[in-house]
């Protein structure tokens, strides 16, 4: 039970008790004793199963981590349920990962099996370590964001259900990072993922001229447009958008609520692939566009799911060990990928923005 229990603070209390600029509590308050003791003195690790690894310190101490996938959006009662398990097996110490998974920290090997058993019984999904899929980074979607061209959690759930085997058991050539952003603002930092779903708007946003002049700064609106599609409309004290220059990024909408970017019929999903964050072997890679448009189909977005699955299986079959999806495609060539995958090559896949000169083929060599 929390410090103040069920009791809500009064406004006066709040004023009196509040303190600004204290920052987060120091992490050392929350470190498992074995971790605290061996902090900075780890020697090696071993991945024991798809969701369990052990780290061994120079001292010989060991800490086991059991990773459980979450859907990120979590009810407080689930947090409490997790806490109960953590108390039971982990001495009250737990962490979340950078991909929104839970890591149960176990210092007593004896607890390892019972913990896993209980987790499984309670329906938790253990996995995501090693050359597998781990949680799909994502954003707010219709759950909370104003600009979302799709729901985030919904697609993630549908995709992850489909690829569950690759989380909990099956291996891939290397780690495969999935992500989703619900608009091109890319809060999910989707641009360097092995496979990502990006929700896109596809219609030139209508402008509410009456409101615009009143609630938005015209120069800001004009400056917001990457393609200079927006110009002043002095007559209307508003702006006009040149249809053929707008590529629906929604940035004008972000800076000005009188512009409406959302369109239920036209909003949809694009699939971008072949990105990677780290610099192992090859430098950081961007995710690149392969499927420009799939209609929004809640509740389970079957085509998006099938597309992701299709690409994963192609990768699993063809890549070399340790080769990330993008490394594989960059090695065999994108023309070969399109052929192997049967994915239609579209105008949209040809860059006409910042990276155009770099991504066109300035060489007479390619595969048929």
């Amino acid at each position, binding site marked *: 039970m*929390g*410090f103040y229990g*069920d009791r809500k*603070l009064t*406004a006066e209390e709040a004023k009196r*008790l*509040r*303190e*600004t600029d*204290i*920052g*987060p*509590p*120091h*992490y050392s*308050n*929350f*470190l498992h004793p074995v971790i605290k003791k061996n902090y900075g003195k780890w020697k090696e690790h071993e991945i024991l199963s798809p969701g369990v690894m052990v780290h061994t310190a120079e001292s010989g101490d060991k800490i086991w981590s059991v990773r459980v*996938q979450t*859907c*990120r*959006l*979590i*009810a*407080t*009662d689930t947090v*409490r349920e997790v*806490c109960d398990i953590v108390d039971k097996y982990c001495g009250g*110490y*737990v*962490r*979340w990962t*950078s991909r929104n998974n839970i890591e149960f920290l176990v210092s007593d090997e004896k607890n390892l099996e019972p913990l896993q058993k209980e987790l499984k019984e309670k329906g938790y999904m253990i996995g995501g370590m090693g050359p597998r899929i781990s949680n799909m*980074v994502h954003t707010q979607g219709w759950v*909370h964001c104003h600009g979302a061209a799709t*729901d985030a*959690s*919904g697609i993630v759930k549908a995709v992850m*259900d489909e690829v*569950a085997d690759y989380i909990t058991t099956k291996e891939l050539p290397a780690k495969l990072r999935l992500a989703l952003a619900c608009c*091109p603002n890319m*809060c999910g*930092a989707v*641009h360097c993922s092995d496979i990502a779903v990006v929700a896109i708007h596809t219609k030139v946003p209508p402008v509410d001229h009456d409101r615009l002049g009143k609630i938005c700064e015209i120069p800001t609106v004009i400056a917001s447009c*990457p393609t200079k599609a927006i110009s002043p409309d002095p007559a209307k004290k508003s702006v006009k958008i040149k249809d053929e220059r707008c590529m629906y990024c929604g*940035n004008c909408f*972000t*800076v000005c*609520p009188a512009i409406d970017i*959302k369109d*239920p*019929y036209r909003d949809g999903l694009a699939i971008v692939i072949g990105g990677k964050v*780290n610099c*192992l*072997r090859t430098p950081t890679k*961007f995710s690149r566009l392969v499927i420009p448009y799939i209609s929004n189909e*809640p*509740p*389970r977005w079957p085509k998006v799911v099938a597309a992701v699955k299709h690409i994963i299986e192609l990768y699993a079959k063809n890549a070399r060990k*340790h080769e990330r999806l993008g490394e594989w495609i960059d090695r065999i060539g994108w023309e070969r990928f399109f052929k192997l995958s049967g994915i239609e090559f579209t105008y949209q896949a040809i860059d006409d923005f910042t990276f155009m000169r770099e991504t066109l083929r300035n060489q007479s060599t390619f595969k048929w």
Partner: protein
Amino acid sequence: MKKYETPLLDELEKGPFPSFVKEIKKAAAKNEMANDELGQLEYSFKTKRGYWKHGGIVGVLGYGGGVIGRYSDLPHMFPNVEFFHTVRVNQPSGWFYTTEVLRELADICDKYGSGIMNMHGSTGDLVFLGTTTENLELIFAELTSKEKPAHLRFDLGGSGSAMRTPSCCVGQARCEWANYDTMEACHQITQEFQDELHRPAFNYKFKFKFAGCACDCCASIARSDCSVIGTWKGPILIDQDAVKWHEKKGMDISREIVKMCPTECISYDGKELKINNDECNRCMHCISKMHHALKPSGERGATICIGNKAPIVIGTIISHVIIPFMKMEPPFTEFKELARKMWDWWDENSHPRERIGEVIEFKGMRSFLEAIGVEPIPQMIKEPRRDPFFFFTEGDIERFKKREEEEKKTGKFIF
């Protein structure tokens, strides 16, 4: 409480992966806000459209950020989410928690909010998903309350044109490869710049992420304006017995290690693995795959890369190397100074909504490097300039000319 039919969302309760619908329903069972969130979400699924208004500016006294204002477009249908702001709670470094502290946070979220959290937001915060305007001050007070013991006192994270909540990989807490203490760095930087975090005074957002090595387990290079990536200066130590162990375990050393080394600096003759350390670029491939046999040694520090941002307006930028090697030891004085110098330059040279990476493109690297007092070195680039026009200062030309005069005296060219 109103009972919503959710035939569409119900479809997402099926399947092996944890279901966010179950989570919302769990919260909805006892929370009106969560219940209306459920209803509105079902309506979004049905109509394929989001129903949130543009966020207005709401927050807590003395802060300019930490809260994202949200209002339903359909308050008549879903009155309990008419106000549904998120509160960003600054996570502890490395997302380590005790159950005590988790329960504390869960209680606050229940009491004043929807009982739904995001663990965690993409930037790193622990997010309370949905609360009303009037509850904001109460949440803040209960989070920070002076009455509570230090370890239970949380502060807000960042939003708006401010420094954003820094985050980091697990680092030395549980990883043998961390070249510096990512968690301590993250903590100290967060504490040092509380003002920059809470009171948006920049022209746009600024993010820090701290990764202990090139694996970059917090995606720093792709998700932060300032990406601090651990590295080392020294040879990779080789345990030849362990090499054999990996081989026995089925590793094809030639294919998996030798051939995949980007700098071709590993050789293996079936007996001994050799690394030409001078040519290694410390990519971590061999070390991570042969983790029992290889490990870095020597001096530790970090490479500081700057400039990453999301695609809008001029296309995605990945952070680029600015400082190839900086010692990263508490109290991180050099690093903090660097941050201040960067911000000063950024501030002076940017318009609103321009990230630092964009400004470096607009102004050129020289202006930036001179401002932060860093000399140009080839590690900053993948390759030199391709086009034959470039700026000179008067001083540059004079320097070149002076050197040429000296060369005439010594008879030796200096290139």
